[in-house]
């Protein structure tokens, strides 16, 4: 009974979320819950509001109306337990920082303002680097990495926060086949403990491992999330797809 309760527990809930940028509505009346076992794929056309939705869930964007609850609270207070891999990562390629130090930043989520990194933090970070297959380049300056390598650094950093929910915004767009496999099997393992929300355009691909799909084009097109069919997706994208 107890176990069942935990498995089904709701981690994050969106209630009547609307988001407007300068009076243009980007998200309209979104109601959505993420449960502990969810591996939720979010799909939709460019400008459909996927990134915005993720940022609302993360507490990075305050919705115009509506409420976000993360473990029963406002995400502002609990956001330290969320892992995030952004779609666009703008950074200064000349910044004097090594790959390992970037991933160590994830550990700031655990500890207060005066946080100093200890051996345990370093172990967790090295482990995360290993998992995404970039341990060997851990001492390189961040600007010397390729696009796919940087995406993997960001994934490692999100893992290093030891989050209670993970968000990925197009995390795989730059990653080659071999490492994609590595990362997908990694995500499946992670998903045994925490929910994952992933945004992707590669519907055929994500439909092989997500267990729920949300079609987003300003509104949520499939209210019950599961039971995705060709029709909804074609409606969302306004073109035909092969599943």
């Amino acid at each position, binding site marked *: 009974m107890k176990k069942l309760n935990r498995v089904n527990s709701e981690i994050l809930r969106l209630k009547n979320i609307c988001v407007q940028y300068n009076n243009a509505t980007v998200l309209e009346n979104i109601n959505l819950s993420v449960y502990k076992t969810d591996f939720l794929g979010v799909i939709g056309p460019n400008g459909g509001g996927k990134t915005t939705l993720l940022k609302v869930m*993360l507490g990075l964007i305050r919705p115009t109306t509506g409420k976000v609850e993360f473990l029963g609270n406002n995400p502002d207070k609990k956001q*330290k337990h969320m892992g995030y891999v952004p779609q666009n990562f703008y950074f200064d390629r000349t910044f*004097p*920082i090594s790959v390992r*130090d970037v991933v160590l*930043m994830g550990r*700031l989520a655990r500890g207060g*303002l005066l946080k100093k990194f200890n051996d345990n933090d370093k172990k967790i970070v090295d482990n995360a680097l290993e998992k995404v297959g970039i341990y060997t380049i851990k001492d390189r*300056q961040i600007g010397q990495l390729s696009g796919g390598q940087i995406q993997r650094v960001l994934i490692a*950093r999100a893992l290093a926060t030891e989050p209670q929910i993970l968000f990925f915004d197009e995390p795989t767009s730059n990653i080659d086949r071999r490492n994609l496999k590595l990362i997908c099997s990694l995500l499946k393992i992670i998903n045994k403990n925490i929910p994952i929300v992933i945004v992707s355009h590669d519907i055929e691909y994500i439909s092989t491992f997500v267990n729920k799909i949300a079609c987003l084009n300003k509104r949520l097109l499939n209210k019950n999330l599961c039971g995705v069919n060709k029709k909804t997706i074609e409606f969302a994208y306004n073109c035909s797809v092969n599943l």
Partner: protein
Amino acid sequence: MFREFVNQLFFGKEQNEKMVKLRYMIEALQYEFMRNALAAGILASIACGIVGSYVVVKRIVFISGGVSHSAYGGIGLGCLFDFNPVLGSTLFSLAAALIIGVVSKESSQREDTVIGVIWAIGMSLGIIFISMSPGYSANLFSYLFGNILTVPTSDIFIMLVLDSLIITVVFLLYNHFLALCFDEEFALLVSYPQKLYLLLLCLIALTVVILIRVVGVILVIAMLTIPAAIGAQFTNNLKKMMFISTILGIIFTTVGLSISYIFNIASGATIILFSGITYLISIGVSFLWQRRNFSCNKL
């Protein structure tokens, strides 16, 4: 020859005799003077090695310029109401830092526009206050261009306190500052970047106060950025960059001070000129270094 030329240039002929007397006085006091000047140079180098590294990696040189020029308003206020201009410049530069930080983040105004406006307002206030106060011309130059040779012991004490404050804050918050500088969006998730950013701007304001004594309002940004920019070429680690730029700062101020004393030329400008030339040379050296490595790899 040169000394007379400078005297005439800055003070006019009729004040020449006074200047000569002043020089004898200075030479009599030489020992304490030089000691204070050296101490001021070292204290300033520590502050600008640490804070200047943040300024360079976060690319907020222009903000530092705004903060330092606004400090002139506080200096003017000090001259007008006859209190220590260091206090006035502290108040004004802190206020400018907070205004720039809050307005540029909270309103939809473009950041560089806000900085430009604050810069100009602070400068204008300084000019107006100073023109209203009696006997202003001497002060004007020492605060605009700095004079490390006239730093009183009381100011050394203030600099020491400010330095300790900066070192303590950076030591305690180093990791969070690093996250803030590298990736503000991620910092929102694991840290408190909005508040820490304001704190960082306040540290810049305090550094500006220290540096004004040494190189003056106008040259502060050069002193903040040049040692850090040279340091950045030799390391990929922010802590090491801070250390290297502190050492470089000490070399620049000490050598610059000696040159300016021997040839009796303006100390602030000498220090900056020496640092600037070193910077240019270091660019050339690192360029050749990279080319050499590149051709080695090829072989």
